[in-house]
């Protein structure tokens, strides 16, 4: 029960933040792919940096154990192909699964259309699963992280990702200032 209260509370905060940023607005999200509106990248990079640095420093200061967190497992080919298919769908609908709910909640029928499609998509995979299961389970690499892949210390990878992400944000800011 307590778990579900946390789920609901985290969800409310998640939905609130996505709506505040304008991520329930399909033309705004699609604008990212035409380099007209960089909100998607700005929000994603800032959020990712905050959580990554929070987990790292939280671990250093003994406030949480990064090793105990669930790291999504790597399946090279399914995730590569899944990402390509997903990106195609993202441009078509101007929404992703989370933001389709935000769009619906802010009164946009596009949100409902995308949610309907999402149901159909996962249903399709579920029904066709016996046929695609070998591909789904192919190229497994377990809970592979960038630090395990490169052999670099956790702190160095965090620092490198920070430099790349901050450079991207700075490039975006410079580009916007120039216009």
């Amino acid at each position: 029960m307590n778990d579900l209260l946390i789920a609901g509370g985290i969800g409310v905060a998640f939905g609130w933040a996505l709506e505040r940023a304008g991520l329930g607005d399909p033309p705004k999200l699609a604008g990212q792919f035409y380099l007209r509106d960089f909100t998607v990248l700005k929000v994603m990079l800032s959020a990712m940096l905050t959580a990554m640095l929070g987990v790292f420093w939280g671990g250093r200061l003994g406030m949480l154990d990064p090793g105990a967190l669930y790291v999504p497992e790597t399946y090279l080919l399914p995730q590569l192909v899944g990402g390509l298919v997903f990106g195609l769908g993202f441009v078509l609908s101007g929404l992703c699964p989370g933001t389709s709910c935000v769009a619906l909640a802010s009164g946009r029928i596009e949100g409902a259309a995308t949610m309907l499609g999402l149901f159909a998509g996962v249903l399709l995979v579920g029904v066709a699963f016996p046929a695609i299961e070998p591909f789904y389970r192919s190229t497994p690499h377990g809970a592979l992280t960038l630090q395990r892949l490169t052999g670099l210390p956790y702190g160095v990878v965090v620092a490198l990702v920070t430099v790349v992400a901050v450079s991207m944000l700075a490039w975006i800011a410079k580009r916007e200032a120039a216009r």
Partner: protein
Amino acid sequence: MRPLRQYAEPHATGVCLGLVLLACFALTGQGLGASGAFASVASGVVVAVSPETAVHSAYFRSYLQDGSPWTAWLVVEIMGVLVGAAASAALAGRTRLTFVRAVRPSGGRLFAGVGGGMLMGVGAALARGCTSGLALSGGALLSVGAWIFMVALFLAGFLVAPLVRRLWP
């Protein structure tokens, strides 16, 4: 049409979103998600309509093994997202009732929305996550698969965008 109220500053909002994700890591040991909620509900529907189909698919079974799919953690989280986003939009005066008003999107865009949703459903199912569960949450934990998914997603998006320009004038 009344112009929409301005949205919040994206970097600051991104930091807030990151703090929500961090709280989620600290409280539950795992990240946020969205596509998993759709998979749970789809599995719940399938097992109710045709239990045989559910039994034959390891995909549906995986969403049915830990109790009722209707009260799965991610389903409750997504209900929270609906409530939080609705409250935020209403309080900021940004709720657009396209159901009733004449600001309805074109039929073509709705069709593209359904089609795009389907592709994302397939993509997220193959990749075991979407922008929230895999790209953002996994990215923050430096999962290699999460970064591959994120790069592939944006690559496909940028490559396909010029072909569907008509959708987003």
